[in-house]
């Protein structure tokens, strides 16, 4: 066996973790591998240093009372309490797996009794304890107290220490702006994790309401300072003194007048007048002698009476130094405690009121023994006398009462409430303490945070009450005007919307159910407060049969017995008996306190758990509400755009993709219409669109086929213009040959070729990309293609060129300020970061783009807005008329417009074409990456650089040679004859290197004219001029153009003669152009399509592909094949 260094067994071996058999195997392997042996040594060394390092880490210890709690635990008799704990945890875990609604149901059924039962136990314990401790213990108990109290005080101190530590934490920022005090306190509680109690009753008496607005702005200070600042500001406003106190880890906020017996709480009408009683604040020096904080409680000093419970009282004993008459409660202590043999020591009853129970205990009074008091105690005395002005009449003896504990070395005496007084006083104290002690009304344990809940409710209401985004759809009552196919499409839209509405309704219902469920949870949590919910019969039975309760009951009994023993002992005055009884008492106390702590801890844990679960539920609901809102928004957007689309379609009688109707030019007689006038057009969009249809296996709609755009898609090999810059910017070439689809007719081709401009001589460009990023662009063949196209274009530009980018959707924005094109990365990033979303406001974007282009206008250069869109303008300026008028206006600034259509299904071909037409620009349709390359790379100069604008063609036919003629294509470019010489009349632009091709089909004289019009009866055909009969010319081509920045046109004339050649003798370009035109006529099903079949067209195209460097003509051939297949002819 060989062993690999990566084998975990090596480590296991080194650490002695292998079984004998494995060990043997590894040892064998090790013997053969020195490397592995070395590794084992290294592992051992590393393990050793790990062990050394890790074992030297300090070992924490449990707190004393925790150890005590463990050792006090009874083995194998799990009380119901712990079963509850476990059940609850188990329940909580399983709850996580059931659905939310289910959770609510289960939660409200099961969590209530469990929690309530535990709380009931707590309450019973508390009451019993209160009951027990309400009876003042004997001096014998006091004698034992130091020992007995140690653990209690330890617990309290430990909790207090933790709370203080939390208070010392630094709050990075604590800002409230007119926040209600109650909320501020809750905020503070949540941020610190301290259990804070506010004695609202006391505060309200001082004129500070829960709703009191608190404005505070504190940074980087401790929570303690935050709390102090809040209290100070409140106190100043209210003109009272506020204080807080930490006892047993609970922070209590109250007034200095707290517990004022002088103003007994209205809720205890049975209180006696309390002139004889007084209340003072005590200062707790236990921790912080320099900085007094107020510790719990007050002392009540009352007239002693012969209260049997406090008795035997020596009512005459007055231990105070100044003999304050109303200080008196006293009792003879007979304890043999070495610390004091002082007889006639007055009794002080201390009240502790930790979180939720009350202990009244006796503290021995170190009567006037100020000499033995600790320095702290002296300080206490001084502070006490100076701070509590009202208490000046109190004697030092009473003050010294607080020293008893201090003198005892624990300082705990200062924590207690010391009562000297009558039964009436005691009752009053109890009443007050109960008022303080609000076990289940503690704000810290409030199960439901009302503020967040209110917010939730409000939000839910907002969601539910929001105006319904559902838009009523128009009735489908125009079906008569609707084609079968479009009708189906619209029905689908309706179905989709209906489906979305039903989803939304379901979501709403769910939300309502959750709200209801949460309400129930709320109610059940609320009901958990025992004082608000009566014990049900089952609960009472459950309590009775609960072993834990009976255990507690028996303990209570035993304590009662021990008390009895004490009383008896006191009666017999037997020291031994007293000691024995006190010992019993002390043990029971310790145990029950530990038990109570435990109960308390569990109760708060469960409440905490309930609170967290509730928060979870609230959180989940919040998320759901958010997702519903989002869904609604999305739906609203979808519906709006679909609605718009729907209405628009109806308005246009569901003439889906918009194509302006095209009617083929008819034959015109040369005698009646000797002039044919039209504007040139270099657009190519129709071809790409036709290709898109055919590639999708569909014949294009006839109106989508514009033959001139098909013809001009291809580049023909016309000779470029000769001469310098002054010469005409383009050349004109004409060829006449047999018409292939009507052999008796002649076909004239007019070809213009713009001057080519080498890309390095291209004038400076100032481009503003205007990119549609509306939701409809979010398709693979739209925005992504736009991005690639723009990147291609940008890569062709140089440092002299500028690019800006404007997007438009619901709102428009400049995403790239005008930047020189050598900042490739910035431009590319801006392009890459485009993303689609929102509806479209084309108008606003167009304005912005033109503004940018004008701002960086380059005189003599290329100033152009490049619009990339699917043409779906559905917001803002949407009427095509408004839009084109706006563009026409903009074009006057000298900024040209190029329009590129992308994608399918939504293409507004007619809008875009007219935009480009009015904007002195060109219109291209980009359906593939190849098309993008053609437009933005290969023919970029043509795309960008206009060499002549408003180029018009007028052809005069010689009636001596031509009987009739027909212009193929250019149907929407026709001009009136007089427009030719009118420079105000807009016409087409020609870009650098562009070729423009136009075809005329001529009927030679002598051939029949299929005009269908009878010869005129009253009119002779006009006489043919002698120039015509004497000429061989069939026609004269007249051209008018303007320089790109010129305002007046120039005229060029070129005559053409028919050499009478057949189609086969014509140039390849002529033949190919004829094939393209014939293809267009076939697709348009033109009445003039003649005898040619698509087969013949394909053959001719195939034969005349020429060089075809980019494969455009080959692609054409394929398209013809596809069309043939689709048309079945």
């Amino acid at each position, binding site marked *: 066996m060989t062993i690999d260094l*990566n*084998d*975990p*067994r*090596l*480590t*296991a071996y080194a*650490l002695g*973790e292998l079984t004998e058999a494995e060990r043997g195997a590894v040892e064998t392997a090790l013997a053969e591998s020195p490397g592995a042996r070395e590794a084992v040594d*290294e*592992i051992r060394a*590393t*393990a050793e*240093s*790990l*062990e*050394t*390092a*890790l*074992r*030297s*880490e*300090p*070992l*924490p*210890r*449990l*707190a004393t009372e*925790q*150890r005590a*709690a*463990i*050792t006090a*635990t*009874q*083995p*194998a*008799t*799990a009380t119901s309490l*712990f079963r509850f704990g476990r059940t609850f*945890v188990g329940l909580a875990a399983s709850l996580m797996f059931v659905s939310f609604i289910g959770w609510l149901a289960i939660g409200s059924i099961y969590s209530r009794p469990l929690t309530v039962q535990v709380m009931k136990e707590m309450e019973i314990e508390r009451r019993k304890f209160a009951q027990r401790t309400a009876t003042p213990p004997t001096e014998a108990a006091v004698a034992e107290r130091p020992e007995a109290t140690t653990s209690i005080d330890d617990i309290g101190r430990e909790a207090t220490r*933790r709370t203080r530590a939390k208070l010392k934490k630094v709050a990075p920022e604590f800002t409230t702006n007119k926040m209600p005090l109650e909320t501020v306190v809750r905020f503070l509680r949540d941020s610190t994790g301290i259990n804070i109690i506010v004695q609202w009753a006391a505060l309200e008496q001082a004129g500070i309401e829960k709703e009191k607005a608190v404005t505070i702005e504190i940074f980087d200070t401790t929570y303690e300072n935050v709390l102090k600042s809040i209290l100070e500001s409140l106190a100043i406003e209210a003109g009272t003194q506020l204080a807080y106190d930490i006892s047993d880890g609970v922070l209590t906020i109250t007034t200095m007048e707290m517990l004022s017996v002088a103003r007994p709480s209205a809720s205890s009408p049975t209180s006696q007048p309390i002139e004889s009683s007084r209340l003072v604040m005590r200062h707790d020096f236990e921790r912080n002698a320099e900085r007094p904080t107020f510790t719990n409680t007050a002392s009540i000093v009352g007239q002693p009476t012969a209260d049997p419970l406090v008795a035997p009282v020596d009512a005459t004993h007055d231990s105070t130094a100044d003999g304050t008459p109303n200080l008196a409660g006293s009792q003879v202590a007979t304890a043999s405690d070495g610390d004091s043999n002082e007889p006639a020591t007055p009794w002080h009853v201390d009240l502790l009121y930790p979180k939720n129970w009350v202990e009244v205990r006796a503290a021995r009074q170190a009567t006037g023994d100020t000499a033995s008091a600790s320095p702290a105690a002296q300080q206490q005395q001084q502070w006490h006398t100076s701070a509590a002005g009202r208490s000046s009449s109190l004697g030092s003896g009473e003050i010294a009462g607080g020293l008893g504990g201090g003198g005892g070395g624990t300082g705990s005496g200062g924590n207690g409430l010391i009562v000297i007084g009558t039964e009436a006083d005691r009752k009053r104290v109890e009443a007050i303490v109960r008022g303080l002690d609000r076990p289940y009304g503690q704000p810290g344990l409030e199960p439901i945070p009302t503020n967040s809940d209110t917010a939730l409710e409000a939000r839910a209401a907002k969601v539910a009450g929001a105006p319904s985004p559902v838009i009523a759809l128009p009735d489908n009552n125009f079906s008569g005007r609707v084609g079968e196919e479009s009708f189906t499409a619209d029905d689908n839209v309706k179905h989709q919307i209906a489906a979305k509405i039903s989803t939304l309704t379901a979501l709403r219902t769910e939300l309502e159910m959750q709200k209801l469920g949460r309400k129930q949870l709320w109610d059940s949590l609320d009901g958990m407060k025992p004082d608000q919910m009566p014990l049900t019969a089952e609960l009472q039975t459950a309590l009775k049969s609960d072993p834990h309760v009976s255990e507690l009951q028996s303990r209570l009994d035993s304590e009662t017995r021990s008390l009895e023993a004490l009383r008896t002992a006191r009666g017999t005055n037997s020291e031994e008996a007293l000691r024995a009884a006190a010992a019993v008492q002390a043990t029971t106390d310790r145990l029950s306190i530990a038990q109570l702590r435990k109960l308390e*801890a569990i109760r708060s844990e469960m409440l905490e*758990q309930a609170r*967290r679960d509730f*928060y*979870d539920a609230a959180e989940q609901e919040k998320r759901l509400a958010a997702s519903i809102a989002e869904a609604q928004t999305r739906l609203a957007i979808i519906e709006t755009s679909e609605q718009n689309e729907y209405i628009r379609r109806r308005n246009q009688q569901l003439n889906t993709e918009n194509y302006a109707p095209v009617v083929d030019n008819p034959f015109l007689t040369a005698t009646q219409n000797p002039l044919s006038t039209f504007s040139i057009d270099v657009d190519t969009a129709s071809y790409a669109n036709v290709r898109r249809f055919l590639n999708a296996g569909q014949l294009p709609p006839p109106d989508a086929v514009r033959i001139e755009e098909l013809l001009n898609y291809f580049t023909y090999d016309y000779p470029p213009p000769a001469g310098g810059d002054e010469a005409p910017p383009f050349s004109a070439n004409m060829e006449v040959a047999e018409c292939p689809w009507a052999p008796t007719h002649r076909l004239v081709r007019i070809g213009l070729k713009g001057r080519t401009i080498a890309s390095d001589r291209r004038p400076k460009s100032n481009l503003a990309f205007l990119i549609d990023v509306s939701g409809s662009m979010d398709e693979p063949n739209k925005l992504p293609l736009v991005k690639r196209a723009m990147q291609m274009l940008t890569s062709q530009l140089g440092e002299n060129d500028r690019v800006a980018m404007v997007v438009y959707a619901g709102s428009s924005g400049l995403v790239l300020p005008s930047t020189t094109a050598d900042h490739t990365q910035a431009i590319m990033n801006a392009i890459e970061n485009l993303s689609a979303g929102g509806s479209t406001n084309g108008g606003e974007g167009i304005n912005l783009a033109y503004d940018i282009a004008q701002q960086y206008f380059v005189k003599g250069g290329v100033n152009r807005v490049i619009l990339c869109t699917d043409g779906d303008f559905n917001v803002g300026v949407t009427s095509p008329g408004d839009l084109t008028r706006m563009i026409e206006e903009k074009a006057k600034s000298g900024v040209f417009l190029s329009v590129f259509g992308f994608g399918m299904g939504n293409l507004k071909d007619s809008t875009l074409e007219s935009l480009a037409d009015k904007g002195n620009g060109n219109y291209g349709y980009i359906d593939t990456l190849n098309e993008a390359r053609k437009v933005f790379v290969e023919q970029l100069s043509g795309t960008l650089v206009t060499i002549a604008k408003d180029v018009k063609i007028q052809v005069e036919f010689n009636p001596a040679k031509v009987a009739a003629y027909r212009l193929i294509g250019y149907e929407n470019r026709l001009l009136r004859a007089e427009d030719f010489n009118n420079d105000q009349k807009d016409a087409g632009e020609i870009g650098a290197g562009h070729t423009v091709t136009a075809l005329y089909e001529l009927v030679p004289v002598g051939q029949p004219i299929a005009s269908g019009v009878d010869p005129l009866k009253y009119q002779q055909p006009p006489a043919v001029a002698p120039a015509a009969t004497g000429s061989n010319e069939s026609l004269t081509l007249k051209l008018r153009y303007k320089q790109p920045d010129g305002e007046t046109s120039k005229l060029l004339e070129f005559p053409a003669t028919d050499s009478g050649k057949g189609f086969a003798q014509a140039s390849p370009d002529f033949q190919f152009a004829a094939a393209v035109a014939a293809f267009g006529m076939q697709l348009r099903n033109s009445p003039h399509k003649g005898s040619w079949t698509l087969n013949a067209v394909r053959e001719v195209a195939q034969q005349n592909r020429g060089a075809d460097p980019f494969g455009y003509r080959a692609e054409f051939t394929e398209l013809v094949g596809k069309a043939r297949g689709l048309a079945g002819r």
Partner: protein
Amino acid sequence: MGEPDGRDWLDDLLARYEGPLLRYVARLTGDGERARDIVQDAFVRLVRERPGVIENHTAEWLYAVCRNRAIDVHRKERRMKPMVLVEAETTPAIESPADTIEQRDSASAVMKLLTTLPENQQEVVRLKFQDGLSYKEIAGVTGLSVSNVGFLIHTAIRTLRTRLEAGTAGARTAGKVTS
């Protein structure tokens, strides 16, 4: 447990496991106070457990109970405050001259490097080397398989070894260690 009447038994257990468990849980929860509560609970449960259930797996049982409880607490709190993570301390502090000196001491170097390991490796390493649990016990505590525990420890030691060597080599040449 076996000795219901022998309180010595409990004292022994407390003396032996109280510190290590607290240390372990405090690391898991990042809160010493919570750790105390958890460990106390675990012992209370131990005492109450029916005899014969734990047998002689006491250590494993205690660690597992504490671990589960710690994870419960951690999970519960994370649900409330998703941003606060206990793992925050695993990033080694920025070097200071004092650090450099300190790192020459190999024990503290190991400790420092230990914090760079993934959390699960750190835990098994601690259980193994700090608390002296066997692979099998660790498997019982963490719920991993024994071989997975072996793999984790092996990987952890290898990583530590490599980094320790790199560290001391760096210290020799550059007088400064980067971990």
